[in-house]
């Protein structure tokens, strides 16, 4: 399999950038198996461990360590790794345990605090969620008030961003808004003006004959984007989408507009819209004509620039023959074969081809598989992955497939499998489910992205 796994990719990956010596993470450089306990305890304090893996946990979880409190607590890499895995597993099996609302946790998201050993399990959507959000919001506000580094922002955002600061944070994470406070306003004004100049130049004037196909395709796709959400049926909104997509397409001739990219504008659009409308008003029913033209123009221009920055990292998904996606489909197959051979054999035994179901997952970044509110939460993590999103996307899809393992194994023929895979029951998913999904994706990535041989082992078998 050519291009199946490229270790080069990992050199630039987010995880590696942040990793120094990380206990609890299999590192290709350190032979964990040969590491003796005494050797490890000599070099690794619990605080170091905690600092090094904090990217795997919600930032607020660090009180977990304050509780344990003892300086110089030594912990072996093996122990810490298995503890993390146990917690993940526990969460999977114990979501229905009775809850005990001890508000010792000011965790940002219930799903994450659930993973902390020794802490009472909580049900979803408990009423201390507000409190959680408040705590996290404060952290965001203090960070955004200064000049945060992108790394700090990624770390805090990875596990979800409060609505109130989401728009600004997304602008920063996309690389659209500079982190430096003083430069922000000037840059925004300039970029927004740039966008409107592009519209004037390419959209408002007589459109070039060469772009007619592009325009036509966008024009027939936009009205059927989110048929069940009234917001998207408004012609003002549809016009905004058409302009964003058209300008993006002509500025990216290598790919041009590809069906599905329209869905990728949606999260940005909704988040910038939410910023403009008053708190707690459901965006689904909002009439955009209630906003001033100035407000609408900001939403549109910012959606355009953030989309552009975001897609820059995954452009090979949309070039001719969609090679980026084809490569990832193959990688997904290899990964599942390695992680869950039973499931892989079940799928292949019934002639299910990975391309048949995962193409849409990869092309639309799961927007078609999840409710919109979950997509937005998922985007928090996507954007926090920053440069390494292209790789992380693969692991999210793998985690998503594994999520349905039991149901899939229960299907006994091609038809049942395909129909399930095309209509996975995510209607009732919440942010917590997305939190768990990305945690699982992270776990897979740590296990496999840094250990290329894990993927290569099976290649000779086929």
């Amino acid at each position, binding site marked *: 399999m050519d291009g199946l796994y490229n270790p080069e990719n990992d050199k630039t990956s987010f995880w590696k950038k942040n990793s120094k010596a990380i206990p609890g993470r299999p590192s290709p450089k350190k032979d964990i198996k040969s590491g003796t306990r005494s050797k490890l305890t000599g070099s690794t304090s619990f605080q170091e461990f905690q600092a090094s893996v904090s990217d795997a946990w919600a930032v607020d979880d660090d009180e977990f360590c304050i509780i344990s409190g003892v300086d110089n607590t030594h912990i072996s890499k093996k122990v810490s790794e298995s503890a993390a895995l146990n917690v993940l597993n526990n969460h999977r099996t114990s979501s229905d345990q009775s809850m005990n609302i001890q508000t010792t946790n000011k965790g940002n998201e219930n799903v994450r605090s659930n993973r902390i050993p020794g802490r009472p399990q909580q049900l979803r959507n408990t009423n201390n969620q507000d409190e959680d959000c408040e705590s996290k919001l404060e952290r965001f506000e203090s960070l955004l008030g200064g000049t945060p580094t992108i790394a700090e922002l990624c770390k805090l955002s990875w596990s979800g961003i409060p609505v109130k600061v989401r728009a600004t944070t997304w602008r920063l994470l996309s690389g659209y808004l500079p982190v430096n406070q003083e430069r922000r306003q000037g840059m925004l004004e300039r970029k927004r003006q740039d966008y409107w100049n592009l519209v004037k130049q390419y959209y408002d004037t007589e459109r070039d004959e060469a772009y007619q*196909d592009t325009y036509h*395709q966008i024009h*027939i*796709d936009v*009205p*059927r*984007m989110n*048929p069940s959400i009234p917001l998207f*049926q408004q012609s003002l909104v549809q016009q905004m989408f058409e302009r964003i997509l058209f300008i993006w397409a002509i500025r990216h001739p290598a790919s*041009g507009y*590809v*069906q*599905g990219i*329209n869905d990728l504008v949606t999260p940005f659009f909704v988040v910038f819209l939410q910023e403009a409308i008053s708190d707690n008003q459901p965006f689904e029913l909002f009439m955009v004509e209630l906003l001033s033209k100035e407000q609408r123009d900001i939403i549109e221009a910012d959606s355009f620039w953030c989309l552009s920055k975001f897609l820059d990292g995954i452009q090979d998904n*949309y070039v*001719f*023959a*969609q090679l980026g996606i*084809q490569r990832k489909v193959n990688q997904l197959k290899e990964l599942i074969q390695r992680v869950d051979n039973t499931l892989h054999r079940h799928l292949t035994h*019934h*002639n299910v*081809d990975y*391309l*048949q179901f995962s*193409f*849409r997952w990869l*092309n*639309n970044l799961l927007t*078609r598989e999840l409710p919109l509110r979950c997509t937005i939460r998922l985007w928090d993590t996507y954007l926090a992955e920053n440069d390494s999103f292209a790789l992380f996307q693969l692991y999210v899809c793998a985690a998503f497939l594994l999520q349905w393992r039991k149901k899939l194994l229960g299907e*006994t*023929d*091609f*038809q*049942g499998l*395909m*129909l399930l895979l*095309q209509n996975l029951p995510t209607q009732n998913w919440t942010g917590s489910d997305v939190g768990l999904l990305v945690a699982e994706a992270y776990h897979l990535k740590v296990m496999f992205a840094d250990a290329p041989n894990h993927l290569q082992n099976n290649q000779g078998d086929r």
Partner: protein
Amino acid sequence: MNTRDDDYDYLFKVVLIGDSGVGKSNLLARFTRNEFNLESKSTIGVEFATRSIQVDGKTIKAQIWDTAGQERYRAITAAYYRGAVGALLVYDIAKHLTYENVERWLRELRDHADQNIVIMLVGNKSDLRHLRAVLTEEARGFAERNGLSFIETSALDSTNVDTAFQNILTEIYRIVSQKQIRDPPEGDTIRPQNVEPIDVKPTMNTDSVRKQCCQ
């Protein structure tokens, strides 16, 4: 194997192709689930559905692959022509351009599908009488000249949708069952030399049919 309502005598793979927005997904939804959405989402890649019908007392299961219409997707969707024994080539009677592109789609089939594939030209959205841009007779003539069957349908008001699928499946069934009488299972098919042979001859053996069609 068949734990569902899944006993069938024949399994035929059929693909739905044609320009974006002509109503392929709604034809499929109408035929397999009796549903219609005025604004259904665009198809990304391919989508799959199935329905069984009766012909001559035999159960024929149609495995239908709906494909994305955008040209960009053809590299992906062409893979799905493989093993297909039927194709519904759909255009929109109210959009002349989608009819003009039928020739391109035919070339696409010639390049990627089995040479014996049964093709039906389908003029969809026949409910849009006041917007008609493609004359029925013109399309019928084109179909005859190119050896295609022809029908006009409306997924919106259900007109002819079942008939269209019924006709193409029956046509495939006739060919397959006559072939079985005429040719032994290993019978040679005459192919032009420049065409790579693809093994898609359905036989009475449902197991082998299933394998071929699910690929």
